[in-house]
Structure formats: C-alpha cells, structure tokens
C-alpha cells in the first residue's frame, strides 16, 4: 500500500496542470486581490456620499432619518449627506448624477441606485445593515442587559466592521479589514478546488470511464483500499498546497488570519477533504462523460464561491439572512464563515458550529463513497 501511495504522490506531484490550478493560480489571484483592494478597507479614501431620501409617511422614518444623518466612518466623517425631497425630485437628482441614489423610506426602506460603484455598494450595505439591525436588536438588548440600544453606534459598527459583534473581538486582537472577505473566500475556493483531484481519482477507478480504471478493476487489489490510498495521496498533496497558499497569504501578502492559526489550518484540512470527496463522488455517481462531470463540478464550485461572497461580498449576507438553509449545503460558505468567526470573534462557538456541519458533510460524503464501492458498481460499464 505504501508503494501505491508514494507512486500516487509522485503522479500527482508531476501533474503540473493540477498543481497550477491548485497552487499557483490562487496565489496569482491573491496577488491581484491584494493590489486591487489595497486601499479599499481604508476609511480615509472614502468620501461622504450624497443621497436623497423620500418620505412615504409610513414606518419608523424618524429613526432612519436620524441614522442616515448620524452614521459616520471610523474617522468621524459622515457617511451620508442626505437631502429630503419628494420622489420626482429624487429621480431628477439621480438622473442628473447629483446623488448616488435615493432611499424610499417606509416599513421596509428601499434604495434606488444607478450604478454599482463603491459609493452605491456602501449605501446598499448601510441600508442592509439598518434592516438587519431590527432583527438583532433583541440580542443586543440582551447583551447590554436591558440598556437602551444606541442604534447609531450599532450602525457605525456595522458599517465599519460588518458585524455588530465587533466588541467581542478584543481577545483576537486582529486589525479589522473589510477586504479579508475576498481572501477567505479565495482560500475556501482553493480547498473546494480539491474536487478536481477527487474527480480524477474517481475516474481512475471506474472501468467504464477510463482505461486505467478498467486495468485496476481487473487486478485482485481491493478497489476500496486503492481508492482510499489514492484519495489520501490527493488529500496529502492538496492540503500541502493549501498550506502553502496560507503561508503565502499571511507572510507575503500580510493577510490577517487572526491569532488562531491552528484552527484556520483545521478548517482548511476539512475543507480540502470535502472538496476531494465531493469530486470523487461526482465521478462515481453522476452519469455521463468525464467532460460533463468536470463541467458540473466547475459550475457547482463557482456557484458555491459566488454565494459565499467570492465575487460580491454582500451576497454572502443576503444568502445567510434570506436563504439560511443554503448555507448548510455550501461548504465554501461554511469554510469562509469559520475563517470570519476566527477573525471577528474571540469565542469559538460560531467556528465550532460550522466545523461540526463541515465534519458531518465530510462523513456523509465518505459514507456515500463507501456504500457505492461496496455495491461494486465502479467496475461496470
């Protein structure tokens, strides 16, 4: 078994294409992110946003008005310069680029913007945070032990830190940076990209999919053992690649992973395992050609990445707040969430919760592969 394992390692190590996609490409992407978002997290590059507000006469408009006027960046600069107008005038202002957007106040305030630049994104985030604020007010009230909730203070925290719970972060001592979300999602994608390695192992053991699969199926060697050996080799090498990406991100790009690196490594290990197992299961269970399976895996990985905020960070929060069930079947989301929780919170409850879901996912995938192999269908055309 050791010979087979070491030969497999050699085999994977020499596959330059896989190594490029698993190791060099993420490093390359991380470098691009690093330079593209170098100044994004710094408040001093942000300017006050001109915005219009339209009254509808319903809902708690007074609180919203006050919040919009009082919300400020960390350096004290007000986020919004608000003008209160009627809808027609607001539309005129927007059409003539006098404002970034206008908010229609009411039970559920709505933001109308023309573009998707940084100002529009900030305005959207503030409004989203305002909406969420009502949902979390009870928790805050509980934490403050019944003290009156300072909505504006909470709002400022949300704008600057994404989460109202920033006060918990003291023990982690991290220097909060909004752009880490991209790097975390990228790291999660690197883990899940192990799917392509798993796919290859699944194909290499299926007689109906590859000549090599036919050859090994004819041999007396136990296919379960061989697959275990091959998947272990894939995991060992892929995870080494993930570690190198982490080392590069933290040491070269100075991405902050908080002070709890062993936990980061643990979640990446489980993530890498899930990626490889999912890829293998796709190869074994899905009908069709290798290309079809590969395309499916690529699509699903990209969708997971998108929903976890790889392209648009706010998507992650929209999914988490509106389609929370989806987060349980999205390992990229769970991995990024683990990383965020390590970064933002000093206590490990959120991390542990996500890790349990990830481990359960890994166990289920593993169980499905074992069941499939025991049925002995891998050899059949």
């Amino acid at each position, binding site marked *: 078994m050791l*010979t*087979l394992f070491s*030969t497999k390692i*050699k*085999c*994977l*190590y*020499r*596959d330059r294409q896989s190594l490029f996609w698993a190791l060099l490409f993420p490093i390359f992407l991380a470098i691009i992110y690093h330079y593209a978002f170098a100044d994004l997290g710094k408040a001093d590059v942000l300017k006050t946003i001109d915005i219009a507000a339209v009254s509808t006469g319903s809902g708690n408009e007074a609180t919203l008005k006050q919040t919009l006027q009082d919300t400020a960046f960390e350096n004290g600069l007000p986020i919004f310069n608000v003008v209160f107008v009627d809808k027609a005038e607001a539309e005129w202002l927007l059409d003539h680029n006098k404002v970034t957007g206008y908010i229609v106040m009411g039970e559920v305030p709505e933001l109308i913007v023309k573009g998707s630049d940084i100002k529009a994104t900030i305005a959207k985030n503030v409004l989203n945070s305002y909406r969420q604020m009502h949902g979390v007010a009870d928790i805050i009230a509980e934490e403050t032990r019944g003290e009156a909730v300072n909505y504006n203070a909470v709002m400022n925290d949300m704008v600057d830190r994404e989460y109202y719970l920033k006060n918990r972060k003291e023990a982690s001592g991290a220097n909060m940076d909004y752009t880490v979300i991209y790097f975390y999602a990228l790291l999660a994608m690197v883990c899940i990209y192990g799917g392509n390695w798993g796919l290859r192992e699944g194909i290499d053991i299926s*007689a109906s999919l*590859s*000549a*090599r699969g*036919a*050859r*090994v*199926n*004819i*041999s*007396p*060697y136990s296919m379960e053992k*061989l697959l275990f050996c091959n998947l272990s080799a894939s995991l060992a090498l892929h995870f080494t690649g993930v570690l190198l990406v982490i080392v590069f991100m933290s040491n070269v790009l100075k991405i902050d992973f908080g002070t709890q690196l062993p936990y980061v490594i643990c979640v990446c290990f489980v993530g890498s395992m899930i990626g490889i197992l999912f890829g293998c299961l796709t190869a074994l269970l899905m009908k069709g050609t290798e290309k079809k399976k590969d395309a499916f895996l690529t699509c699903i990985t990209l969708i997971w990445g998108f929903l976890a905020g790889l392209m648009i960070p706010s998507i992650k929060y929209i999914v988490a707040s509106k389609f929370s069930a989806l987060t349980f079947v999205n390992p990229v989301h769970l991995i990024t969430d683990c990383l965020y929780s390590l970064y933002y919170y000093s206590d490990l409850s959120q991390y542990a919760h996500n890790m349990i879901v990830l481990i359960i996912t890994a166990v289920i995938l593993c169980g499905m592969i074992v069941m499939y192999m025991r049925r*002995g269908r891998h*050899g*059949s*055309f």
Partner: protein
Amino acid sequence: MEEKTAVDIRGLYKQYGNLVAVNGIDLKIKEGEVFGLLGPNGSGKSTIINCLLSLVRYDRGTINIFGSTMKESEVAIKRKIGVIMQEVAVFEELTVYENIEYFCSLYVKDRKKVKDLTEDAISFVSLEDFKIFYPQKLSGGLLRRLNIACGIAHRPKLIILDEPTVAVDPQSRNKILKGIQKLNEQGATIIYTTHYMEEVEQICNNIAIIDKGNVVALGTKKTLTDSINMGETIVVEAQINHAVINKLKSSGKYRSIEYFDNVLKVKAKKESNSFIGLIDFLQQNNVAFHKIYFDMPTLNDVFLEITGKELR
C-alpha cells in the same frame, strides 16, 4: 492425457438496450493455446472479453476460468489474469519503469519481487533504453509495448489481449506478435482479439469468428478454411481477349472470374487440379502469361462465405 480447460464460457448472453451484443455463445479455451477471437468492429469481441473479466454484468450464462466461476470478487482468479486493453492505460506522469512497477504492485506484495518482475517485463518488451522516459515521449509502438509490459509483468497464466496492435507500425506489430508467441511458449494461455485476420493466422492455434454476437465459425485455421467450398485464388498477369475470358467463364469450373487491367483473378472451387487445369486452359487458348501464382483460402474467405461480407 486430457488437456485442461483454461476458460469455459457457456450460454453467454448480453444485451444493451435493444442491441444483442453477445447472443448465447459457448467457447472452450484450453490451457496453453493461443485462442483468436476474430470479427469485424462491433461484432461483440470486446463485450465477450469484458464479460470474461467481470467488467460487464452479463444477462445470462456462466464463465469458468481455471475451473472456478469468474466473479468481480474472485481475487484468486484475477491474480492469474493479465490484460492488455485496446486503449493504452498508463499514467502520463510516471516513467516507463514506474508505470510497470505500479501495475505489478497491484498483483504482487513483495517489493523485491515487484522490482525483479518489473525488470523482466522491461527486457521482455525491449524497453531497457526507455526506462526513465515518460509515456508522452514514446512512439506509438513503444507505448503499446509499455501497455503490454504493464499487463504481463506479474506473469499471469492467462493473458487477454484486446486488439493490442491497433495503430501500430509493422515493425512494432511483428515484435508484439513475436512477444505473444514467446509468452505462450513460456506456458501462458493467450486470448487474442483482433479484426486483423493475418495476425490470427500467424499466431493462433484455435480461432472463433464472431459476427453480431454469435460464433459463426470455430476451429483451427485449417479446419475453418477446409470447411468452406472454396479452393485457391489463382492470379494470372497476361493479355487475354474477351472471347477467352467468356469461354473460361462458361466452363463453370470456377467460383468467380475477374479480369481487369491485364490481371486475371480466378477463385477456384474446392477441388483438386484447379491450378493445373487453368494453366492447361490458357496454353490451349494460346495465352502467354508473364506471371502466375495462387493464394490459399484465408479466414477472410471463410468470413465472406459464412456472412456474405468482408472482415474489414
């Protein structure tokens, strides 16, 4: 002494949807023989092999190899079988040596023995100079030889070769065929599938001709060619006028007569003296010929006689 049976197939039937790929065939292959499965593409040869190796679940029938029923879980039998698939099945990322060693390791546990067997397999296919080469650096012929080495390194008693010479140059093909004969001389039973009748004629003791999932003929080359109503094919290079050709045709002594581009091709019936008879006829009709020769019936003729179509 009674010859032992290596492979015994009875009533093997396999259907894919509406297509009957193997239609209840019976085959018995004796130990130590080179058995040829000959048939056109799509005739069912590879399906028979895949059933034999438990790569395909067949609908009906039984397969016994060395006296035991062949199953997917039959490790002891699998250990005795070596397979060379039609498609080259090696790892691009491993060298010639590492590939052979890897596949041999699936059969043999002892590491030292694996190394010895790997060296033997390399010298058997004459790849000593290419040990450290990666497969993409090898020519088509060398790649086929590597494929063979991967299949036979563990010294199997039964070797199944599924069209191993497809897309191989004549020189490499000869080497492969000689290698197969050598393996047989060393005691291995060989099952050889191909659609090249020359190869089957060259190396096989017994031949089954397959068409549309049925065994349409079975026996040695001699018994097969003797079984058809066809004698030799006589070829004459000469200028012959049409009246003589018509006279020859009207004699009714021959199966078919073709004359084109100063070449007369006569297929004789299965009776003696056709060749001499034709020479006499040509002399009597004052035909001066430059060259005359004959070919004995081939397996293609057998296939043509039975199915009404050419092998390829």
